[in-house]
């Protein structure tokens, strides 16, 4: 039934708009979404995807310090292992249930280079962050033995950035044409918002995660939004002031129905949307009298600035008419083939400090229970090292942060850290045979748990995540 509705939606859009662009007008989409959505909400919720481009090394982010597990870890990661004492000094209050005790990479800990700031470990121990272990792209549940035997289908192009990024973002390794799961969620929920600003916002790039049938990411400059100079913003004083003739000419050139070429129409559509959305957001962020500055200080980093922009948009959610929003922020440089110890320190420090500030901002804004941030990444990295770095892997560990998160706990199953040797090449049951970690929790489960919290009903969950039923638990319970 719900599949039919989605099919209907898809077809009716094509039929209704024909050769005219799908994104021809804000209003049309709004009406269409409303007409096909059963959702409305009295509360506010936001999902914030924090994508770590390059493939974060979860195995050096969440590290055992008990003697048995640490010894295994040490032999796996001889040249890039963190010191046992360092890990223990950053211990988590809870254990994952594999008999081991784990601590955080020091960059997630309370002690940072800038001195004493709280971070992800603090949030975990305070119950505001959860760790989901060994998540990865899957089509079916699979063990290391099954992988090595080739007896269970696996996602195509494993270990490739360009393929695993979209597979993580779609949760559909078997069909990348469907769009991202954030976008598909927004397709269903967009009608619940009364405002016209797109429900899916990126302070980063043009991602797959937020692409659906009817939505695509609205990319906002984390430094703020201003209207184009030629339309009266920015450097308008040089040429036009706020010259209505200039604005009229520009708008005539990008007007709907005045282009004869499909790519010209797509360019014009984007130009119109960008200016219209900028008008909405500028108005909301700059009311009279002006909003006071956020009290929460954000680090001046890539993620810090992006998450500050997200917090500012969340603050004006009522003005914008938003009851559900999906945000996408990202950081790069996680592809730590070399100099991993130094690079991951910088990366995780940025991540930890920015997420901590963001959580604090949601508390300041009184929406902590309505905002859930979660990490995602191309893949985890290999058990093995290549001396100073690690190579592309598969499963990896992730953080979920927010007031609604059932934090302070591990979810999922930690992978074995046993070392494969020539004598016993399958000593590690979770090793693909090439050093990558076979995931024990699928992206589907991870995503569906978040989408369920966000308000997607069970039947629609099955539509968005059609492979979910193949896995033991549809809801991991972390939020």
């Amino acid at each position: 039934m719900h599949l039919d509705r989605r099919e209907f939606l898809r077809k009716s859009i094509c039929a209704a708009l024909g050769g005219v662009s799908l994104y021809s007008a804000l209003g049309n989409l709004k009406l269409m979404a409303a007409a096909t959505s059963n959702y409305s909400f009295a509360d506010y919720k936001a999902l914030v995807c924090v994508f770590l481009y390059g493939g974060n090394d979860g195995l050096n982010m969440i590290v055992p310090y008990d003697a048995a597990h640490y010894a295994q870890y040490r032999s796996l990661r001889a040249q890039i292992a963190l010191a046992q004492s360092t890990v223990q000094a950053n211990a988590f209050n809870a254990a994952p249930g594999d008999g081991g005790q784990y601590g955080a990479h020091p960059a997630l800990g309370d002690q940072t280079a800038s001195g004493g700031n709280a971070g992800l470990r603090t949030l975990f121990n305070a119950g505001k962050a959860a760790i989901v272990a060994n998540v990865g792209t899957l089509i079916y549940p699979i063990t290391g033995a099954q992988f090595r035997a080739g007896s269970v289908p696996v996602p195509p192009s494993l270990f490739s950035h360009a393929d695993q990024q979209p597979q993580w973002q779609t949760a559909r390794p078997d069909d990348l044409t469907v769009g991202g799961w954030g976008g598909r969620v927004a397709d269903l929920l967009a009608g619940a918002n009364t405002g016209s600003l797109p429900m899916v916002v990126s302070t980063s790039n043009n991602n797959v995660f937020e692409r659906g049938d009817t939505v695509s990411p609205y990319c906002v400059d984390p430094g703020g939004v201003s209207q184009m100079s030629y339309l009266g913003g920015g450097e308008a004083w040089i040429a036009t002031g706020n010259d209505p003739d200039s604005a009229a000419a520009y708008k005539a050139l990008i007007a709907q129905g005045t282009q004869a070429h499909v790519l010209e129409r797509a360019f014009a559509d984007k130009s119109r949307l960008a200016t219209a959305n900028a008008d909405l957001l500028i108005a909301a962020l700059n009311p009279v009298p002006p909003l006071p500055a956020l009290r929460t200080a954000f680090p001046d980093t890539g993620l810090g600035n992006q998450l500050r922009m997200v917090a500012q948009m969340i603050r004006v959610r009522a003005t914008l008419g938003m009851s559900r929003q999906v945000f996408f922020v990202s950081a790069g440089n996680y592809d730590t083939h070399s100099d991993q110890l130094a690079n991951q320190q910088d990366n995780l420090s940025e991540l930890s400090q920015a997420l901590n500030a963001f959580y604090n901002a949601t508390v300041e804004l009184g929406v902590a229970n309505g905002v859930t941030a979660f990490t995602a990444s191309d893949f985890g990295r290999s058990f093995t090292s290549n001396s100073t770095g690690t190579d592309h892997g598969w499963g990896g560990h992730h953080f979920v942060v927010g007031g609604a998160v059932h934090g302070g706990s591990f979810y999922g199953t930690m992978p074995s850290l046993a070392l494969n040797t020539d004598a016993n090449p399958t000593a590690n049951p979770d090793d693909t045979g090439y050093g990558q970690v076979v995931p024990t929790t699928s992206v589907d489960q991870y995503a569906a748990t978040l989408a369920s919290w966000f308000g997607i009903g069970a039947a629609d969950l099955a539509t968005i995540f059609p492979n979910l039923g193949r896995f033991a638990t549809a809801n991991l319970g972390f939020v």
Partner: protein
Amino acid sequence: MGMLGIVWEPLHKLLRSTRFNPKSGAPAVLGLRRQDAGANIRAANGPQGEPRMRRVILTCSHACSGSCAPATRELPSPATLVQRFLWRAVFVCGPFVCALGAAHATVDASAAGMIAPGPWISPSRTDAARFLAQATFGASDADIAHLQRVGYLGWINEQAAAAVSLEKPYLDWDSPTGDNNNQNPRREIWTINALGSPDPSRAGYPGNAHVDQLRQRMAFALSELFVVSDQNSGLSYQQWALGSYYDALAKDAFANYRTLLEDVTKHPAMGNYLSMIQNRKADASLNIHPDENYAREVLQLFSIGLTQLNADGTRQLDANGQPVPTYGQTTVRGFAAVFTGWNYTNVGCGPSTYNCCDADHYFDWGCAAIDYNSPRWQLPMQPIEAWHDSTSDKQLLNYPGVALANGVLVHGGDAQAEMTAALDNIFNHPNVGPFVGRQLIQRLVTSNPSPAYVARVAAVFNNNGSGVRGDLLAVLKAILLDAEARSIPPGAADSYGKLREPIIKFTHLWRAMAARSSSGRIDNFNTYPALQEWIGQAPLASGSVFNFFSPFFVQPGEPAQRGLKAPEFQILTDMYALNTPDRLYHEIFCNYSGSGDCWASDDPGTIQNNIQRDAALAMSNPGQLLDQYNLLFMSGQMSGYMRGVILDRINKITSGNRGASAGMFRVQHALYLILNSPEYSIQK
């Protein structure tokens, strides 16, 4: 592998100008107006005095040894008088006909393939402008006129012979002591070379403008295929590494792909970017395996891609309709093991300079490039055999006709020998031609080339007509001279072409408007925030090895519904859709000759558009101004609607409301509206 013969005149005119005798009944020899490749075309005449052109015999000459046999083609017959007069034939030898045979050598102007409509020898002004949009960083009046004189092939041959413009000499000139670690001078010389403007670092300034537009445009396209980036922490201070890397791309732009592949592989910028430098053989006791980074990306991005391709670039599918992978993890491991044992060059090392890298100091901090302008950042990496895996057999690519048995490289070779074997193994994979060819077409001509177009270009990659595989100049000719490049296919009129890359909008503006700075430097791209944050692009500044945009990107909405790829749309986000016009606004309204209007407008390194050049015309005949810009910027493709909108806007600017600057103001508004218009933004 030149072009054999080109005839682009109505036949009656052509025949009259030759020794053709319509009454003799013997084949006539048509002399070409321009001896592009010493070709002859013999046409058999009809019996009634009127040339019928029933048969055209194409005879190959010097550059077409071997596989290029004379080709005979029948015309549809009887051709009507009108048809006869409209027959326009082009015969292309070397890479085209020789490699492709009969399918593309018909004389039917409507046939797909080698027959491009429009004057070939003396292209019209609009055709010339259109060609220059594809082959250069933007048309200028002078270049249009010159191209009309020499013809497409003549122009390409001139370009192939032109001296290569490099970045390194400028960096050395800018900072003789090598202590400059920002990327500003590199962006300056990139822009100077892209514009072909006078170079203050070289002798003869200011009379020394660069003229190697085609090479520079190709180098830029290659820089978006073989990506390295100053956004990488290991390279963010290394302008000599990046400059010399870009120089390697420029030097190899017309060379062989195999040469390019090896130069890229061994360049220390790439060595750092994809961590092949100091890659080491496995050590089981430490659970260390060779680094797979370069191994994976050289296959996935630089050469063959993830799935098996047909000769026309379409994906091969297995019995279940699934794509066929080109390789698996075992192969990645094989290449990773091949690419072990490489480190910085030891040229220049020694007791009085810096430590040498040897077997005992492979990873040492001392074995790093300390100075930004050190040879270590510029010269090819060198092998250190002790760290090379010489003991394991390596699974490389396996494909029909592979030279290595089952694609396995048997152990024992030294680092260079194994690299040679491995790069040969990649180079000869059948995917390379369609994979690389399609992307180069996308960078220069159109986002959605027909499979037949890709196949023609790939065929030239596979064999340039002289039995040489990988000839990039031949590939470039095949791309630019193809019928699908020279004219818009009738069935694709509303989807052909590509979104112009934002950075090329700027170079186009500056070239068309003869922009100059007083010092010869070009600081305009040294922006804050960084250029890529304004417009989504900067030279060698991609956020990842996957370039600013993917060749497979699909823009949601109508392009997606139509099944079209639209790579450059990936960086047309809402943010850049506002920021790029604003940056263009700044260049147009702030930086005109003599301006002191804005911050840095009158800095010696700021190039300023010669707005005044056209100001008088803008007042006396604004319609003619727009016609001129229609040619320069839009190859004559501006719609009447667009022209009307802009004319209406600039006519509202008068000396009554803008005084003496009204003419310049008209020019500026016209430029702004054109450069940000949907019609201009799609290069067609």
